[in-house]
C-alpha cells in the first residue's frame, strides 16, 4: 500500500473520529460515540502495523518512511513541511499509542457509559491521539511542537472534562500553563538549534550534530538541548515542572491511563531519543538530564509512599518512572529509555485502568483507606493489577524488570553514568516496590474498610478485556529486551531485540561503542535491585496487611518529616507563595500604580497644564469685544514692529 496514503489514514482516522463525535456531540450516544472513536483508533493501529511491517521488510539502514504532504511554513531559510516520518523509533511509538489507545478507548466505552458528555469525551480522546501521532511522526521540531502543544491542549480539555468542579478545571489549567513554561523553553531551544544549524528537521539535526562533545554550557548543542529538555520536564512531569501531573488525575481515569501514563507524558523522553545525536553532543545536558531524572525518580517515589488517593499514588509512580526514563536518556541509554517507555506504557496503563475499574466499582471512591479486600469482589481486576504490580516493582520475568534493569545497568556502567545515579535508581526501585505493594495491600488485600452502602462488583467485560490484554503485555512486553546475560542462559531467545531494532537510529555515547559490563557485575547489580525490591515489598506487605497499625506509628515517629512528605514537600504552596501570588500582586500593582496612577496621571497632569493655561488665558476673554479688537490691534502693532525693526 502507498505509504503516504497509509500515513494519511493513520493520521486522519482519529481526526475524522474527532470531527464526527465533535460535531455530533449532542446526538451521539455512548455506544455510537465510543464505537466510532475506537474504530478510528483501531484503523490507525492497523495502519501502524502495516507501516511497521513495511519497515521491518526494509534493509536496516534504509528503515525510514518519510512523507511530506505540503509545505507548511516557508520563510527565508526556515522551511517546514507537513512532513511525517516512520522510522524504528516512531514506529514503536505509534504502535504503543494506537495499540494502547485502542484498548483504553474500549475501556472508556464502558467506563464513561453514564456520562452525559461521552461523545465530547471521545472526540477529545481522538483528537489527543491525532495530536500524539503528529508529535511522534513529525519530521521536524516544529511539527513535533504542533503535536506537543496539541496533546497539551487535549490533556487540558480532558483533565477539565468535569469542568463544573472548579478544582478539576483548575487542574487542567495548571497542567496547560505548566506545560507552557516548558513549551516556551522548547521554543527557545528550537531557535538556538535553528540559528546554529539552519534547520529544524530532526533527521538533519542529528546529522549536523557536532561530532565532538561540547564542553561549554553555552555551546549551541548544549544550550539548545538544555532548553529542549526544560520543555521535556514540562511535558514529562520532571522536577521542577512535575506539579501538574498529580493534579491531572482530576480527569477521567482512562484519560490518566492514556495520556498521563502511557503516551503523552513520555513525549519528553521520546523527543530526547529522537534527537539523541544532538543530546549526545552535549554531555552537560546529559548530566543534567540524568541527575534530574534520578532525583525525580526518588523524589516522586517518596511522595508516592504517603498518598492515600489511588490515582495520586499511581501518578507519583508515573512521575517516578518517567524519572527512570530520563535517567536512562541522560546516561545515553536511549534504547533503555525507549524500552522502559514501552513497558511502562503497558503496566502503568494497566494499573490506571485497573484503578479505574476499582473506582468504578467503588462508585467514584478513590481513597484507598476506604477500600481493602477487593480481591474477592473483583478477581479479574485484582489479577491483572497484580501482574502490573509485579511488573512495576521489577520482578523477573515481568516487563518492568527487564527495562528497569537495563536502565540501572546503564546508569552504572555508561561513561555518562555514575554509581550514585545507579544507587538513586535502586533506591527508587525499592521505594516503588514499597508504595506499590502498599497500594495493592490497601486496595485488594487485608481487611475490607469499604463503607456499607457501597457494594463493589466486578467491571463489565468491555473493561476487563483491555485489562487482560494489558496484563498479558505487562508480562511478556519485556521479553523483547532481554539482556545478553539472561539470553545467554535462555536458549532460543534472542537478546535485546528492541536494542538492535533501534540501534541504527541511536548514537551511543562516545567510547561506549562496545562497552559491556562483565556478566558477573551485571548479575550482581540485577540481584541487588531485585532482592532489595522484594524485601521492600515484603516489608510493605507486613505493614499493611499483617499489622496495619505500624505505618501510623512510623509516621508519628517521623513527625514533621512525614508531614512534609505527605504534603508533597509543600511544593505547590511554594510555587504559589513564591511565584504565582507575587506575580498577581505585582500585576495588580502594575495596573493600579503604573497604568492608572502613573501613565494616566501624566496625561491628566498634561491635561491640567493645558487647562490651567487655558484658565489663565481665559481671564483675557472678558466677552468685551472691544478689548478683543484691542488685542488684535496690539497683535498688529507687534507684527508691524517686527517687520519694521528687522
Amino acid at each position: 500500500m502507498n505509504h503516504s496514503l497509509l500515513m494519511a489514514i493513520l493520521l486522519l482516522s482519529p481526526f475524522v473520529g474527532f470531527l464526527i463525535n465533535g460535531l455530533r456531540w449532542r446526538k451521539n450516544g455512548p455506544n455510537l460515540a465510543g464505537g466510532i472513536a475506537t474504530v478510528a483508533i483501531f484503523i490507525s493501529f492497523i495502519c501502524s502495523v502495516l507501516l511497521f511491517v513495511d519497515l521491518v521488510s526494509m534493509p536496516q539502514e534504509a528503515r525510514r518512511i518519510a512523507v511530506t504532504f505540503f509545505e507548511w511554513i516557508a520563510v527565508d531559510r526556515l522551511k517546514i513541511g507537513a512532513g511525517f516520518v516512520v522510522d524504528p523509533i516512531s514506529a514503536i511509538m505509534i504502535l504503543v499509542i494506537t495499540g494502547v489507545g485502542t484498548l483504553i478507548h474500549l475501556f472508556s466505552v464502558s467506563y464513561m457509559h453514564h456520562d452525559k458528555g461521552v461523545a465530547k469525551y471521545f472526540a477529545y480522546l481522538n483528537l489527543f491521539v491525532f495530536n500524539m501521532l503528529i508529535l511522534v511522526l513529525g519530521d521536524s521540531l516544529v511539527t513535533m511542537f504542533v503535536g506537543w502543544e496539541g496533546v497539551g491542549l487535549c490533556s487540558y480539555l480532558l483533565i477539565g472534562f468535569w469542568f463544573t468542579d472548579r478544582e478539576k478545571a483548575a487542574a487542567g489549567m495548571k497542567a496547560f500553563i505548566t506545560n507552557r513554561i516548558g513549551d516556551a523553553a522548547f521554543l527557545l531551544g528550537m531557535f538556538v538549534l535553528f540559528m546554529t544549524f539552519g534547520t529544524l528537521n530532526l533527521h538533519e539535526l542529528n546529522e549536523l550534530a557536532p561530532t565532538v562533545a561540547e564542553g561549554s554550557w553555552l555551546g549551541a548543542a548544549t544550550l539548545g538541548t538544555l532548553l529542549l529538555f526544560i520543555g521535556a520536564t514540562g511535558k514529562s512531569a520532571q522536577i521542577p515542572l512535575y506539579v501538574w501531573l498529580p493534579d491531572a488525575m482530576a480527569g477521567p481515569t482512562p484519560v490518566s491511563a492514556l495520556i498521563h501514563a502511557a503516551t503523552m507524558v513520555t513525549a519528553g523522553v521520546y523527543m530526547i531519543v529522537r534527537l539523541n545525536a544532538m543530546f549526545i553532543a552535549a554531555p552537560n545536558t546529559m548530566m543534567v538530564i540524568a541527575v534530574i531524572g534520578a532525583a525525580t525518580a526518588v523524589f516522586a517515589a517518596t511522595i508516592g509512599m504517603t498518598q492515600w488517593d489511588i490515582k495520586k499514588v499511581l501518578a507519583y509512580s508515573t512521575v517516578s518512572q518517567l524519572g527512570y526514563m530520563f535517567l536512562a536518556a541522560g546516561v545515553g541509554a536511549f534504547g533503555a529509555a525507549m524500552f522502559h517507555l514501552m513497558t511502562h506504557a503497558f503496566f502503568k496503563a494497566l494499573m490506571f485502568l485497573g484503578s479505574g475499574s476499582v473506582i468504578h466499582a467503588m462508585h467514584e471512591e478513590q481513597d484507598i483507606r476506604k477500600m481493602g479486600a477487593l480481591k474477592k469482589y473483583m478477581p479479574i481486576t485484582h489479577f491483572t493489577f497484580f501482574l502490573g504490580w509485579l511488573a512495576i516493582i521489577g520482578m523477573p520475568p515481568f516487563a518492568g524488570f527487564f527495562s528497569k534493569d537495563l536502565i540501572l545497568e546503564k546508569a552504572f556502567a555508561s561513561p555518562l553514568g555514575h554509581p550514585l545515579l545507579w544507587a538513586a535508581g535502586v533506591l527508587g526501585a525499592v521505594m516503588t516496590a514499597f508504595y506499590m505493594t502498599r497500594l495493592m495491600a490497601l486496595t485488594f488485600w487485608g481487611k475490607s474498610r469499604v463503607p456499607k452502602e457501597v457494594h463493589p462488583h466486578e467491571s463489565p467485560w468491555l473493561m476487563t478485556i483491555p485489562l487482560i490484554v494489558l496484563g498479558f503485555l505487562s508480562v511478556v512486553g519485556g521479553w523483547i529486551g532481554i539482556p545478553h546475560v539472561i539470553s545467554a542462559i535462555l536458549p532460543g531467545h534472542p537478546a535485546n531485540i528492541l536494542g538492535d531494532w533501534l540501534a541504527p537510529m541511536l548514537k551511543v555515547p562516545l567510547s561506549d561503542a562496545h562497552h559491556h559490563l562483565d556478566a558477573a557485575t551485571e548479575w550482581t547489580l540485577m540481584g541487588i535491585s531485585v532482592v532489595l525490591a522484594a524485601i521492600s515489598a515484603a516489608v510493605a506487605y507486613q505493614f499493611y496487611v499483617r499489622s496495619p497499625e505500624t505505618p501510623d506509628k512510623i509516621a508519628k515517629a517521623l513527625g514533621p518529616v512525614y508531614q512534609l512528605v505527605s504534603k508533597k514537600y509543600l511544593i505547590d504552596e511554594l510555587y504559589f507563595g513564591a511565584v504565582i501570588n507575587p506575580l498577581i500582586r505585582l500585576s495588580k500593582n502594575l495596573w493600579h500604580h503604573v497604568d492608572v496612577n502613573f501613565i494616566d496621571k501624566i496625561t491628566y497632569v498634561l491635561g491640567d497644564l493645558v487647562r490651567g493655561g487655558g484658565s489663565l488665558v481665559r481671564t483675557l476673554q472678558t466677552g468685551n469685544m472691544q478689548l478683543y479688537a484691542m488685542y488684535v490691534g496690539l497683535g498688529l502693532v507687534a507684527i508691524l514692529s517686527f517687520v519694521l525693526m528687522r
Partner: protein
Amino acid sequence: MPSTDVFTTITLQHYLVLSAALFMIGLTGVLLRRNVIVIMMCIELMLNAVNLSFIAFSKFSGRIDGQIMVFFVLTIAAAEAAVGLALIVCIFKRFREVNIRFFEHLKG
C-alpha cells in the same frame, strides 16, 4: 522733496496716508464706541480705508488686481453687514439694547 511738491504733486503716499488716517479713525471708533451699530459702521470705515489703499496701489503699480480685491472686499462687507444687522435686530427685538457691553453676556 520741496514743500510745494507735497501739495501739488499727488503721489501714492498721499493716498496711503489718507487711507491710514481713515483706518485709524475707524479703529478708534471700534475700540471706543458703545453702540454696536456704530461699531459696525466703523468697521465698514476701516474696510473702506483698506479699499482706498488697494485702489491706490492698483493705480500706481499699473495692476488691476487691486481692484479685484476691492470688489471682493465690497462683497464681503455687504455680507457682513447683512448678517451683523440681522443679529443686532434679533437681539434688539428681544432686549431693546444695542450697547456693546450688553453683548458680553449672550446667555438669554
